[in-house]
């Protein structure tokens, strides 16, 4: 029922845009004199993955010599919800930069979770401190949501809350796990199908009027015809005539010609033959 296939990859793009915000975070360590002993970029990945792929990629030769390398971050989409506060009229359209008529997108909030896993509390603080000042409480990215119409939208990404888990208590058989979790909401838009051609111009409208309502016997008696009327000499023949009419383009300044015709020939318009029969 819903119809034709389309996939703008908007949710995927939103995931990528969210992830890239955090892909240049670094963690620095110093010696007791304050000299930098190491400076590493924090590894980032989208959390969910196919298990077999994770296994064959991350433990290719079954001999991984260490348990895990830290620090690292992961992010994942945790929910999608309609945002009624940004609702616009369902029938409202806008014209894209290439002239295509596009229905207004539907506002959706995409929830994300960013997890930070570190060995040291200080590492976590370094990472969090490199993130938080940019969110007040939102950080906006301009995203090319639908490439085919060049539609760029500002997507605010809002930091909702921060929580952390530090399992340092207990016996020595379990290792300390230090995980910060930051929850975000990206206010994105979902677009419906986009017409493959640009918006056209209706060049002629006929309205036939009948004397009665019988679909068997009634014939058209009056025809009201409206056509766009050129206001400039498109074909450069020195005069503005009906010859210029085919050259009128959407967006041009043009008028309308109205014509009313009366019939007594007992015929009707055939849409298939495009003539009166």
């Amino acid at each position, binding site marked *: 029922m819903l119809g034709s296939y389309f996939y703008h990859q908007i949710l995927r793009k939103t995931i990528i845009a969210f992830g890239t915000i955090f892909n240049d975070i670094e963690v620095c360590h110093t010696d007791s004199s304050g000299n930098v002993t*190491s400076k590493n*970029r924090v590894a980032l990945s989208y959390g969910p993955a196919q298990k077999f792929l*994770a296994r064959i990629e991350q433990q290719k030769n079954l001999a*991984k010599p260490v*348990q895990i390398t830290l620090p690292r971050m992961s992010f994942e989409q945790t929910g999608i919800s309609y945002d009624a506060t940004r609702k616009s009229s369902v029938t409202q359209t806008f014209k894209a930069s290439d002239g295509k008529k596009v229905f207004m997108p539907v506002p959706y909030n995409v929830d994300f979770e960013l*997890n930070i896993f570190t060995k040291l509390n*200080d590492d976590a603080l370094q990472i969090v401190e490199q993130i938080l000042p940019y969110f007040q409480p939102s950080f906006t990215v301009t*995203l090319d949501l639908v490439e085919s119409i060049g539609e760029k939208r*500002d997507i605010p990404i809002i930091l909702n809350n921060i929580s952390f888990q530090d399992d340092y208590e207990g016996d020595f058989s379990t290792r300390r796990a230090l995980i910060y979790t930051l929850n975000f909401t990206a206010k994105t838009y979902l677009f419906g199908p986009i017409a493959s051609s640009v918006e056209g111009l209706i060049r002629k409208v006929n309205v036939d009027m009948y004397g009665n309502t019988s679909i068997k016997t009634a014939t058209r008696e009056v025809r009201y015809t409206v056509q766009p009327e050129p206001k400039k000499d498109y074909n450069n023949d020195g005069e503005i005539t009906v010859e210029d009419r085919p050259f009128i383009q959407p967006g041009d300044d043009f008028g309308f010609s109205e014509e009313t015709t009366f019939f007594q020939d007992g015929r009707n318009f055939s849409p298939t033959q495009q003539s009166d029969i």
Partner: protein
Amino acid sequence: MPTNPLFLHGTSDEQNLIQDLVNEQIRMFGSDVFYLPRKIINKDTILGEVESSSFDNRFIIEMFIASDEGYGGAGDVMTKFGLNIKDDITFVVSRERFELFISPMLLSIYGSNASLRPREGDLIYLPLVRRLFEIKFVEHEKPFYQLKKNYVYELQCELYEYQDEEIDTSDQNIDDIVKDVPYVEMILMNTDAVGATGQAEAVFIENNPGFVRQIVLNNDGNGYDTTPIVSIEPSPVGLATANATAVAVTRKVGDAKSVEEILITNTGYGYTTIPTVTISGGGGVGAAATAVVQESDNWIKQIAITNSGSGYRTQPAAPFITDPDVSGNTKPSLVAITTTSGGGSIFEIRMRDAGSGGYTNQPIMTINEPFSLVGLGTAEYKLSEVVTGEVSGATAFVASWDINNMQLRVYSSTGDFLQGENIVGSETGAKYNINLIAKHAASEPYSKNDEIEQAADLLIDFSEDNPFGTY
């Protein structure tokens, strides 16, 4: 009720016997492992964490693997942070053997801070499986005081959770474990030398003696935020080309800013008296200098740059006059002034002392090649050696070097290498010039930073001036 006094519950001979039996059992049924003590480099006493540590030593010792049915723990676990291998293992080491063979070495290395027992946080490398384990807990009372003494340490270990600790034990098998684990930068080196030696020629003048040979700073003044202007009284010859010119060099030490020296750019000619030198502007006061006039013929009036060269990212060695070598005369003392344009080029050559003159032939100027070219491409980097950026000062360890593709992979860098600078090996002296840096491309398969960044570059409009998205 007291214990029976007729039984001793353990004499030293009995204790020694048990200890010997334990030692023998571990030697027969155990495995050789390497014990890697942790050296703490920096400790955060507020947050209670070791921020930086290294493992520089290894000691071989036999240990019994108590986990005879394989690893304990949760095994390979898929987490939101990728694959986490939670393998546990328990080693048993003879107390006597540890205290006799490892403790003294720890004492000699770490002094009074050394621990005489196995310590939590230290590592054990098990060659059998080529894996590193971290000691989580040392159980020292199990079995519980048999014949009034304990004979073993039970080391409860877990597969090592690696961060950026330096592992440099000189055992390639151990050191290689982490060479691909940390986050590695891929650096592509230039196949050709980058840079060219500048060229200049001395502007020789044969007559009209009386030139400003040197300007002696009498007072360096203070408060010079910018370079002041040096004005020298015009030559009596009356031509603009006959007037000497010079520039000041300022120096800043803490909040003190003064004139460091005055360098001559044109000696002028025809001076019959000592011209007045005026230092003005620059926001400072008090600097004063006196000109020294030399009355000999045939001197170098100024140095003209004929080729600015390139690759002069750092100050080259002083240019010099190679010919003619007239005995008794003093050659000029020159300073090359570089600019960052064109990848580092020679902007001007100034004279600290224009020399005594008296040349009989046209002097020949020589400018040293850029430091970036000296010894470039002469050796090969060695695995695990420390490399240093000549300009940035950043250091890192070599993970691999592929001379055919000119690809250097380094890890544990202490800063950012700069495109265009040379990276020098500390042991081999190998030196190559950076063409391209794939910034911190992680060799860890989990890391998808670069993939995410590349995908986002196609989607995000970074040109958009967004007050809420400034970074």
